[in-house]
């Protein structure tokens, strides 16, 4: 029996089970042998090249000194070198000049997309579509002016407009109601109260507002404080905007992003981005 199982007289381990069962000392197949040696050689070479073995206080750093952070930094450097072509020009240029250059303004828009998302979109909505109480940036109605320089200024210094409350001693509720109806109808300049009560001082005789003050245009269909209903307008007239004497006053403040919060270059990029949202004024 045992001879039949070992016709080529291969050497055995010498262990015998159940009287006849021996273990032959056959070599593994050649392909397996090659694979086995290739594998451990690979492991040795790999662990020599890359950070690998744990040591008592640290770990073996690898002969090439490769780390993931180094590779990341190198990749970032590569990206920055691609951007450098534009980035180096931006600080020395005015926003108007950046806007006039097709390629640079395109770069500014693309790189400001993330900045806008991080700093502006929370109030103004993605794409500058606006939110209740926060102006739409994609239209052509600008309280302080929609030129590229004014937009830059607004971002840098912020804005805080002021409209005194007219409720109480100044106007009765009936008068407020009259004015509000006229404003919503777009006919406020025909309303005698508009002249009498001094609204005209800020909102001008034509009713289109003054950009130097940030007073709103009352003749168009765009509303600073949404929704543009009679009640909403009446509320604004009654309590004013940012009037410290009225606790129920409208709160309207654009924080400043200059002075360390954002770099000048970032502000320039954002100004171009905002301008391009709706094409400025």
């Amino acid at each position, binding site marked *: 029996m045992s001879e039949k199982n070992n016709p080529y007289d291969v050497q055995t381990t010498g262990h015998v089970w159940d009287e006849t069962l021996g273990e032959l000392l056959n070599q593994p197949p050649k392909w397996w042998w090659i694979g086995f040696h290739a594998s451990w050689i690979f492991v040795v070479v790999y662990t020599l090249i890359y950070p690998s073995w744990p040591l008592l206080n640290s770990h073996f750093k690898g002969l090439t000194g490769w780390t993931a952070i180094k590779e990341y930094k190198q990749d970032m450097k590569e990206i920055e070198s691609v951007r450098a072509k534009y980035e180096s020009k931006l600080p020395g240029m005015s926003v108007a000049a950046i806007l006039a250059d*097709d390629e640079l303004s395109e770069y500014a828009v693309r790189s400001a997309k993330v900045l806008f998302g991080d700093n502006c979109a929370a109030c103004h909505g993605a794409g500058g579509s606006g939110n209740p109480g926060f102006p739409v940036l994609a239209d052509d109605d600008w309280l302080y002016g929609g030129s590229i320089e004014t937009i830059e200024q607004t971002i840098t210094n912020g804005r805080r407009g002021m409209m005194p409350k007219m409720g109480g001693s100044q106007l009765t509720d009936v008068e407020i109601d009259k004015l509000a109806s006229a404003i919503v109808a777009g006919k406020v300049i025909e309303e005698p109260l508009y002249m009498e009560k001094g609204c005209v001082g800020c909102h001008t005789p034509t009713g289109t507002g003054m950009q130097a003050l940030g007073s709103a245009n009352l003749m*168009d269909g765009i509303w600073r404080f949404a929704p543009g209903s009679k009640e909403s307008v009446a509320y604004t007239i009654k309590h004013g905007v940012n009037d410290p004497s009225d606790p129920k006053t409208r709160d309207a403040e654009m924080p400043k992003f200059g002075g360390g919060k954002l770099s000048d270059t970032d502000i320039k990029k954002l100004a171009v981005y905002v301008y391009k949202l709706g094409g400025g004024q």
Partner: protein
Amino acid sequence: MSKEERGAESTIYEELGAWHVNTGEETIHAKRMPGRFRTLKYFTSLVWLVYFFGPYLRYGDRQAILFDIPHRQFHFFDITILPQDVWILSLVLLFFAILLAAVTSTIGRAFCGYFCFQTIWTDAFTWIEEKLEGKPAARHKLDKAPWTLKKLRLRLSKWFFWLLISMFTGISFVAWFTDARQLWLDLFSLQISTVELVAIALFTAGTFILAGFMREQVCFWLCPYARIQGVMYDSETILPTYDFKRGEPRGRLKKGGVPDDQGDCIMCNQCVAVCPTGVDIREGQQEGCITCGLCLDACDTVMDKIGKPRGLIRYASLDDMLGKPEIPLYKRPRVLVYFAIMLIAISGILYGLTHLGSLELKVLHERQPLFVLQSDNTIQNKYVLKLLNKTDRDAEVSLSVQGPKDMQVKGIDKPLILHKGGVTPHTVYIKIPKESLKESRIPIIFTAKMSDKAAVAKYESMFFGPE
């Protein structure tokens, strides 16, 4: 078990016993004999000169044929193909796949025998081997001989020439993907990039090993096409065939010629000696046969010598051997189907190449916000135009918009400069008075026109307004 069944069983085992598979333990040293098919093979090999010298063709100030992967462009003389037109490539691949099928179903593995790089490179390598180490018998002897200084010298000089061809093969491959002149400059000034170096090294090693050492083993065990083509044969396919009716029973040549009771095969074994894959064609068509026709040359030479007609081994179909009538090409459905597919593919390619266009336009409508109310009571929509210039020079493009009469368009007044081979984005704003908006969606057609060419691209978009 009946007697007949047992008989069948024993035949199977007899065949099994004779079945020999060369898995590389035996080096094939094929004999070189002149002849018609040998000459044909030399000519078909010349096709590969295109591979070696193609990259040096120039067109204008650049390489005529260049697969520019970093810039995602394929240049073919004055045609530049960008990724947008890559569907043409799939048709080209389809065409060649079906061409292979059509050729194989009519004249067998002609690709393997006359055009395949593995076959041709092996042929070149063995030619060098024969020049250095002598005829097959001498080479067999040298293989078995112990390592002496002379053997070492012969081997080293053979490997040197093999390596030279291999390296030139590798460099030529890379030259299709980068500027060939610059590649040579970089090579000699040791400034070659890692990617190029690795590609050349891999190709060099591959050529050296595959054509130098693995040879017919590649066709037997590695190449998928060998097997795919094998199943494309049918009984009408013409293949190198041994005419067993004429040849059998085989026997040795006697003084005074072939005896009358013998077939024409005189067992000279020349057909086996010349076979580059080491098969015996007299056993019939088999996986190892690359249909190169070299055994036909060998047999014809011998037949000439013993005064018998040529063609004991000849290109013939199975039907022909069995005495069935030959079916003309145009009556064979497979061939017709193949040619129909090829025709479709080639018309697609031609259509693609003639309608490549120079300009492509896509319009993305701003979605956030979809539309904006302006202070003058108009509704504004914003569009980003993506203009692709497919030509190889910067171009000027003028834009126009078709839509409702009272719309105002901002951003199309001055022409745009499009950089060559790239996409230029451009923003356009459209305003329509609110009161004239009858529907919440109005189709708008953008048209871009290249000023110095007749290239025009149109794109239909939408104008959105309040419900």
